[in-house]
């Protein structure tokens, strides 16, 4: 074993595969495209600043000083939840190391037996029975693992995420097992904040117009229509209009989203499962994870334990040649058994051992804001349309299968 002089300690996040960006020496983990996240921040901070600057003084004087205090508390909670959702690890499953990938390959070949030449090998699926329901575990060709139940591969972040819900461009991260409750609390508190600001905007406008109307009626003709003065009052205060407009449009989308996720939580489903109709009831398929009790389902999702991150980001990268040297003969042994697939495996995803991981694993804080890939649809909950989901790709699996033939 040769001694290697390392001038700089390399942390594991620098060599992680996948398309995440890391900040603060691996403490912060986000998706690559952050433009829409900055927009979210701007909208929330901007609207709240206008509210605090122009309306809170009036409301604090004429109604109660607790109004801006509660607004500030709510605003801080919204920001905390947003940052927590955006910056935390959603539950990324690390890719299989060389030996594990080889072991799984051997098991698959042993299970498949001899496939006649020219025939496509059967799809890589493992069946498990959970609560009297057969659940299929699919093999991920990128991560070289059989995905645990409810896990899914996010094509935007190029990671398998446990209990994958969806990739949210507004938050700039995937929503998975570890940050789903923060995401839910963010949408819930943002709904409350939006309703709160909207309500007090209206109250402010009405109070001001009533004041002006009262003064006008005192000073001028008693026949002045209060409606006209209300409009004047509203028109004169342009700094009230923008929060009202933003709040009005945000209200329907965010409240709708909160309602949709409340529905999903009560059934213990993910957005991904809902889109794919996994537990829609066809062919007597039922959700095996649901406790059949709304309260228990909510408790499990919202009050469950805080899962730790299994992706070691801040650990120091080890240079250990011993496992790498035994991996080499394993590769050559495998290439003789099943011809094209190890080649396809070798070229697709670099594993952690590989010192020459692609440069895009490094963080880029100044990354240009790119267009968000998944469009946001706004619908109220009864129509049950999930607005922010990114489609789960089985395309990659079929592409690789096509390549191998």
């Amino acid at each position: 074993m040769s001694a290697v002089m390392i001038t700089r300690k390399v942390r594991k996040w620098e060599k992680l595969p996948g398309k995440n960006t890391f900040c603060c020496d691996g403490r912060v983990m986000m998706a690559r495209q952050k433009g829409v996240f900055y927009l979210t921040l701007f909208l929330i901070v901007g609207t709240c600043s206008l509210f605090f600057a122009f309306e809170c003084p009036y409301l604090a004087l004429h109604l109660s000083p607790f109004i801006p205090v509660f607004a500030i508390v709510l605003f801080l909670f919204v920001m905390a939840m947003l940052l927590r959702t955006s910056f935390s690890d959603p539950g990324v499953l690390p890719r299989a190391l060389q030996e594990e990938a080889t072991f799984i390959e051997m098991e698959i070949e042993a299970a498949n037996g001899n496939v006649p030449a020219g025939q496509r090998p059967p799809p890589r699926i493992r069946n498990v029975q959970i609560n009297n329901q057969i659940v299929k575990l699919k093999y991920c060709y990128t991560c070289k693992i059989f995905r645990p139940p409810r896990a899914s591969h996010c094509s935007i972040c190029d990671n398998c995420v446990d209990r994958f819900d969806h990739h949210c461009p507004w938050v700039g991260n995937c929503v998975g097992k570890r940050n789903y409750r923060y995401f839910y609390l963010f949408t819930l508190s943002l709904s409350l904040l939006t309703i709160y600001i909207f309500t007090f905007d209206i109250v402010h406008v009405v109070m001001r117009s009533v004041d002006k109307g009262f003064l006008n009626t005192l000073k001028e003709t008693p026949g002045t229509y209060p409606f006209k003065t209300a409009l004047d009052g509203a028109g004169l205060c342009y700094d009230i209009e923008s929060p009202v407009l933003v709040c009005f449009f945000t209200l329907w989308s965010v409240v709708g989203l909160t309602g949709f996720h409340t529905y999903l939580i009560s059934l213990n489903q993910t957005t991904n499962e809902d889109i794919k109709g996994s537990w829609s009831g066809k062919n007597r398929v039922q959700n095996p994870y649901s406790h059949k009790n709304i309260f228990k389902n909510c408790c499990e999702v919202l009050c469950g334990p805080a899962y730790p991150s299994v992706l070691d980001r801040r650990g120091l990268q080890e240079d250990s040649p011993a496992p790498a040297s035994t991996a080499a003969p394993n590769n050559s042994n495998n290439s003789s058994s099943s011809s094209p697939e190890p080649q396809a495996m070798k070229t697709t995803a670099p594993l952690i051992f590989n010192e020459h991981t692609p440069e895009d694993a490094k963080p880029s804080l100044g990354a240009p804001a790119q267009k968000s890939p998944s469009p946001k649809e706004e619908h109220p909950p009864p129509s049950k349309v999930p607005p922010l989901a990114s489609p789960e790709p089985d395309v990659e699996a079929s592409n690789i299968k096509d390549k191998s033939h």
Partner: protein
Amino acid sequence: MRVQTNNVDSFHNLQELRHSASLVTKVFVQRDYSQGTVCRFQTKFPSELDNRIERTLLEETVKTLNSYYVEAEKIGGQSYLEGCLACATAYIVFLCMETRYDKVLKKISGYIQEQNEKIYAPRGLLLTDPIERGMRVLEISLFEDRGSGSSSPSSSMSSAAGSAR
């Protein structure tokens, strides 16, 4: 083997095992999803370990690990309190406080260390903490003493492949 002589020097023995013995192969104990997404490992005994360790010892280790994970993921009074307290402080308290899951993970890594020293290292085996493999598998490395080993790494790998069935 060298490591059989002194079990007192714990960590050094495991390091020595890695350096003095050569890695033959690795066996992976998979997750058992029959009870849902709770972390649980299969107690099925891998055939590669037939002449290395008694079945009951490995089963005992896996069952104890499973019980630790059940304790970590239990949804009960303590997890509610922790969740509510954390929510009330906007989860800032997690920056200073260790969660219950973290505490149990520390217990698990201590347990695995102890099992390695007492049971597995003397038999030329090494357990890897599942958290280092994404909680997907329990990795057991098989070592053979350099010089006294009759088979080279590549041929024993193919013999393990043959016995994997």
